[in-house]
């Protein structure tokens, strides 16, 4: 059997055709999107600074007023009003109306399709298999972390990621078993958005992406740039790749579902909850779990 007949047998899927159609545009478009986004991020953060200063000033004034009006003993109470010393999460959300619409769309999509599939996956597939699949995806993610840790100038952390990848790919059988974590080498999430942040690019306004969820202008642009290089996209044949990508979505959602069974009701405003939690989490990731107070 020669090579050409083999290739002839694999019919390109419709998704493949779509990709082939878009391919010549792709990288240039991605670069363009990135340049646009980064300029937006720089511009907005430059204009957001006075707003933040004013916010801080008004809060200080409020405390002063409280102390002056309420007499002795109120200093303690006034200190309660002051926001806890975590750095100001960007309170301004200029795209809120659009974001809310996209968030609603994502939410409906999640409720109608992704969540039912994820809970079915959770109920049918036994835990060891689920964890194994999750570990395989995490193993690919180690490669992403490795590259970004090198870009951020953290060679010792990169060495850990490399060791994880080697150990898990060989002893852990293509990452199915997470042997490295058991021996004390922990995974750390690093992506291109974090690298840009470490390099000093401001986050820009909060952005909810359709299908992909919470993001910021910086992270979205990094995502657009990084997409063609992500390890999961290098897998051939394309059918396997699409199955794996769909699988990663389902398994990620299932893990979330398992972690929080009743969290829907715990939020008063789901959009605000998601936004504030995402921005804080992101900040913590950028500073490797140790953001300045």
């Amino acid at each position, binding site marked *: 059997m020669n090579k050409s007949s083999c290739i002839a047998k694999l019919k390109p899927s419709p998704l493949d055709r779509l990709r082939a159609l878009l391919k010549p545009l792709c990288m240039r478009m991605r670069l363009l999107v990135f340049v646009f986004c980064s300029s937006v991020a720089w511009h907005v953060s430059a204009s957001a600074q006075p707003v933040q200063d004013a916010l801080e000033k008004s809060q200080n004034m409020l405390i002063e007023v409280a102390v002056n009006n309420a007499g002795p003993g109120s200093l303690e109470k006034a200190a309660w009003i002051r926001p806890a010393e975590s750095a100001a999460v960007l309170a301004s959300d200029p795209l809120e109306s659009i974001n809310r619409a996209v968030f609603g769309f994502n939410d409906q999509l999640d409720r109608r399709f992704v969540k039912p599939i994820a809970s079915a996956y959770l109920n049918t597939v036994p835990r060891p298999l689920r964890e194994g699949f999750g570990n395989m995806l995490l193993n690919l993610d180690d490669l992403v972390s490795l590259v970004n840790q090198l870009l951020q100038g953290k060679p010792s952390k990169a060495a850990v990621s490399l060791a994880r990848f080697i150990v898990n790919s060989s002893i852990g059988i293509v990452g199915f078993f997470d042997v490295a974590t058991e021996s004390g080498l922990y995974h750390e999430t690093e992506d291109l958005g974090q690298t840009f942040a470490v390099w000093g690019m401001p986050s820009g306004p909060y952005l909810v992406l359709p299908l992909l969820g919470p993001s910021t202008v910086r992270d979205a642009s990094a995502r657009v740039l990084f997409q063609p290089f992500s390890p999961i996209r290098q897998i051939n044949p394309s059918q396997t790749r699409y199955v794996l990508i769909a699988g990663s979505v389902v398994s990620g959602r299932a893990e979330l579902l398992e972690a929080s069974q009743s969290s829907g009701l715990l939020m008063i405003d789901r959009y605000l909850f998601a936004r*504030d939690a995402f921005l804080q989490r992101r900040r*913590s990731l950028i500073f490797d779990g140790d953001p300045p107070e």
Partner: protein
Amino acid sequence: MLNVTQHLIHRHSPWFPKTGHRLPWLLIARSWQVSLLAILVLSLLSLQAAAQTRPDEFVGRISNEILEKVRQQRQELLNNPQKLNDFVSQLVMPHVDFERMTALAVGRSWRSATPEQQQKISLEFRNLLTRTYAGAMQSLRDQKIRLKPFRGDAADAEVVVRSEIVGSRGDPIGLDYRLFRQGESWKIYDINIAGVWLVETYRNQFAAEINARGLDGLIATLADRNRALEARKL
């Protein structure tokens, strides 16, 4: 100094100092030992004195206690949500200052609230968080708590203690606490899970609700949520 050593050391000893001699090395060594011992004893004493109030030890003690108890009666707690809630409110909640936590989350409107409203919000928020905590406990299995080195000053009135939950797979999950001193002990007033501070996450939600419907609106919403959660669980 020389006179003292002449009294301490026997005349026939080879170390007996003669006039014009330097101090014998053995004595110098002994004085070193003595001072080292003194330092050790002193530091141990001071450690023991501080042991009652060190915030990281406080956090480590409670979290290990809770993990241990959850492990012992895991199945029982999973089967009975009411019991899980009681468990949380008995073991965890005494260490948390809810008034302060709620005040921080409500922010500037807290001062304009009547004491009655303040009490109601605290109560509802407390119930909500108890349920959150109980829900998080359900997914607890073989994880361990690992304290990170404490970098603050244990003498401060307010400190941050960092720890992480280490499981058998995936990233360690950060679990930090903000504590303030209360007498000999400490009280928790904010918790950070995976980089997300609880109070900060609720602050904007509370503010939006208060802007839209006022303080009573917020109380009503919180009460609604608690009722819905209770109906679903039991």
